[in-house]
Every structure is written in structure tokens, then in C-alpha cells.
């Protein structure tokens, strides 16, 4: 994965982002009920999609790491986790900013946002584990196991939280995910935004991954230097 690929990805991201911004602010009509604040939706939803997809990637990379034992899979998992965390945080923040003018409260315990909160806690736990275990040789294994069980748990979490909210509806009537998109222009805008954020995630993932690989090369080179210097010292 070369610098050229990363640059191409960056350009693609930029192009899609510009297109998405244009569609969100110029092209798409204002929604009837919620007014212009509803436009947050077009970036909020893709962030959520990325946050969940990234987490799946963390788990899959973890499985490959445990199976094949190659460091490259662990680096991929770590890169995906950090990048995914950024987007997960954005989901919560934008969701909160959207909720305030619509529902009058910064936080509504609606099923989607609550599930994302749990996901955020899982991301946090995963990253904290990596930070704390960094001095052990087993950090990659531990992280892989935690990533796998967390991702496996996510569907159960989604179902249980959704059921929780249906049986005990919030005091504030929850929006049904805002997917009542009547106008095809809204659908188009959402799709372009999804593409833009997927590209953005891909680009950031590549960069973060490259950084981890570079650190690995550095560690190997440092070790070689140590060996070579010792050999040279013996000769003197």
C-alpha cells in the first residue's frame, strides 16, 4: 500500500466530500417537519455506518491475527479501532446537537443513539486495553479477543436495546430513525454522503495503518542496528 494509493484515496475523498457538501447545503430540499437542522442527518447517519463497519473490521482483523499470527492484522485492527472511535464520537456529538432543537433535550435514550453509546464504550475499553497492555508481549492477542467478543455482542445489544425502547418508550417520542425519506433527492444526498464518508474512513484508515507499519519497520531496523553495532564492537 503505497503513498500513491493513499494520495488517490485522499483525492477521491475530497471529491466526494465536496459533492456531498454541495448536495447537503444546496441541492436537497429542506425537510418539512424539522427544518434546516434536519440536514445534520446527512452526515450523522454515514458516521454511524462507518462506526459500526469499523468495529466489524476490528473483529475480523482480530480473527485473522489469532489465526495467522501476522502483525499486519493487528496493525489493521488498531488502525480501524482508532479511526472508528473518531467517527463513533462524531455520531454521538452530532446526534446530541440534532436532538436539542428537535426534542429540547441533549440526550434522548432512543434505541439507535443508546446502542451507539454502548459501542462507544466498547471502543473506549478496547483502546484503553491497548494503551494499558502496550508493555506486554500479548497486547495484540488480548485486543483481538476483546474485539471479537465485543463485535459478536453488538447484534445482541442492538436487539435488546430496541426491545427495551419499544416496551418502555421514552417520554420524548423517538424519531423512527429519520428514514422516512419521501423525496428522492434526500435519498440521493444520503447515498453520496455515505460514499463520501466511506472513502474518508478508507483514507484515514490507510494513513493510520501506514503509520503503524512504519513504526514496525522502525522497531525492526533498530533491532538490526543493535545487532550490527554489537558485531562491529566485537571486531574492534
Amino acid at each position, binding site marked *: 500500500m503505497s503513498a500513491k494509493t493513499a494520495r488517490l484515496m485522499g483525492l477521491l475523498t475530497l471529491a466526494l466530500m465536496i459533492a456531498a457538501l454541495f448536495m447537503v447545503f444546496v441541492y436537497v430540499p429542506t425537510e418539512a417537519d424539522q427544518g434546516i437542522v434536519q440536514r445534520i442527518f446527512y452526515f450523522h447517519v454515514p458516521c454511524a455506518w462507518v462506526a459500526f463497519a469499523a468495529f466489524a473490521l476490528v473483529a475480523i482483523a482480530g480473527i485473522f491475527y*489469532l489465526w495467522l499470527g501476522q502483525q499486519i492484522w493487528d496493525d489493521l485492527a488498531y488502525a480501524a479501532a482508532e479511526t472508528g472511535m473518531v467517527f463513533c464520537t462524531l455520531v454521538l456529538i452530532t446526534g446530541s446537537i440534532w436532538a436539542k432543537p428537535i426534542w429540547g433535550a441533549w440526550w434522548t435514550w432512543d434505541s439507535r443513539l443508546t446502542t451507539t453509546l*454502548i459501542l462507544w*464504550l*466498547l471502543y*473506549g*475499553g*478496547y483502546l*484503553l*486495553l491497548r494503551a*494499558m*497492555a502496550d*508493555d*506486554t508481549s*500479548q497486547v495484540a*492477542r*488480548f485486543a*483481538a*479477543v*476483546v474485539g*471479537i*467478543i*465485543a463485535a*459478536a*455482542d453488538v447484534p*445482541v*445489544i442492538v*436487539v*435488546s*436495546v430496541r*426491545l*427495551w425502547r419499544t*416496551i418502555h418508550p421514552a417520554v420524548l417520542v423517538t424519531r423512527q430513525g429519520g428514514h422516512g425519506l419521501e423525496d428522492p433527492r434526500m435519498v440521493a444526498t444520503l447515498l453520496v454522503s455515505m460514499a463520501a464518508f466511506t472513502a474518508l474512513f478508507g483514507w484515514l484508515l490507510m494513513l493510520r495503518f501506514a503509520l503503524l507499519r512504519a513504526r514496525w519497520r522502525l522497531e525492526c531496523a533498530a533491532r538490526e542496528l543493535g545487532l550490527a553495532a554489537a558485531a562491529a564492537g566485537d571486531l574492534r
Partner: protein
Amino acid sequence: MNGFATILVKDLRLEARGGDSTITLAAMSLLILVVIVFALDPVGGARDAATAAGALWVALIFSGMIGATRALVAERRNGCTAALLLSPVDRATIYCAKLAAAVIFMAVAEIATVIVMVLFFNLDFDFRLARLATIVAAGALGFAALATLLTAIADRVRGGDLLLPLLAVPLFVPALIAGVRASTAALAGAPFMAFMQWLKILGAFDLLFLGAGYLLFEHVIGED
């Protein structure tokens, strides 16, 4: 005697001979219930199934986090993990044995907790507790499965005692939601059919973590 039974009996014997796991668990549960009563102040000791169920599960989770995993810690404290790993028992069996010990410790503490809950919240000692016991047992099983796996990691990481609850709580959320809802319904007298969906979630959760623990334990157990 097979490996599973050997390890389990060893842990139980250790506990019976002066271990403090069950006492700690029961004591923690009791204290947490007291704190909740003072904090939430159920009006006039009201017969409130929902508050009682909630308090019960809070006590279970927190005491479980502290006490349920002593079975694993015992080896580490005495440097015996290497010996355990050198024995001809495969890792998955070690997991099952540790898990079983944790469940037994939790079960003992939970019986005490349920009794105290009934007293504190002015409920009745009747057949509804039988349904409640099933639900709580299922929850304890799932929690023990989760905690045994996570403790193997947390023990080997610095700051692990913060890491364990940080990871365990979000992971346990589905069982917590399902458990509390089912417990509330059970205490209110509903039959299993009425809250079957919650039982299904609890069951799925247990299966998931039992399976995950069984398969993944070998990757995390070790000594350092």
C-alpha cells in the same frame, strides 16, 4: 478423575478451607442494596417490583465484578499458573472449571442477596421467587462466562482492575436489560410466557459468551 472435576474441586476446596470469595460477594451485594435503598429511597418501603429487580441486578453486577473471578486470581497470587498450564488439561477445560467455580460462588451470594432484597423491599417469599431464581441464575451464568474470560486478560495488564468493569459493563448490557425486565415481570407474578422475549435474549447472551469463552480462553491464559 477428569481435569474439569479436579480443578473445580480444588477451587471449591480452597474456598471452603478459608477462602473469602463467597463471603465477599455476599457482603458486597448486601452493602450495595443498602446504598441503593438510601440513594433511591423507595417510598415507604414500597412493594415495587421494578425497583427491587433493578437493585438486585446492580448488586449482582458489582459484586460479581469484584468477587466472581477470585477463582482465577487464586492461582496468580501464588504463582501457580504455570503449574496449571503444564498439567495435561486443555485450556478450554480449564475455562469451564473456572467458570463453574465462579457460578457456584455467585449462586451462593445471590441466594443471600435475593433474601435480603425480599426483606428490604417488602416482597413475599413465594413461588414468584422460583421464576426469579431461574432468571438470576441465567444472568449469573452469562456474567461468569464473560468475567472469567476478561479476568484472564485483566490480571495480566497493569491497571487491569479498572479495565475489567470498563469492558464487562457495556458487554453485559443486553443481559442486564433482559434480566431486569424479566425479573420485574417475574416479581410482579407474570408467567414465563409473558416475558419470553427477554428470556430468549438472556439465553442467546449466555450461549454467545459461553461459546466465545470456550473458544478464546486459550489465547488469553498465561503467566507473567
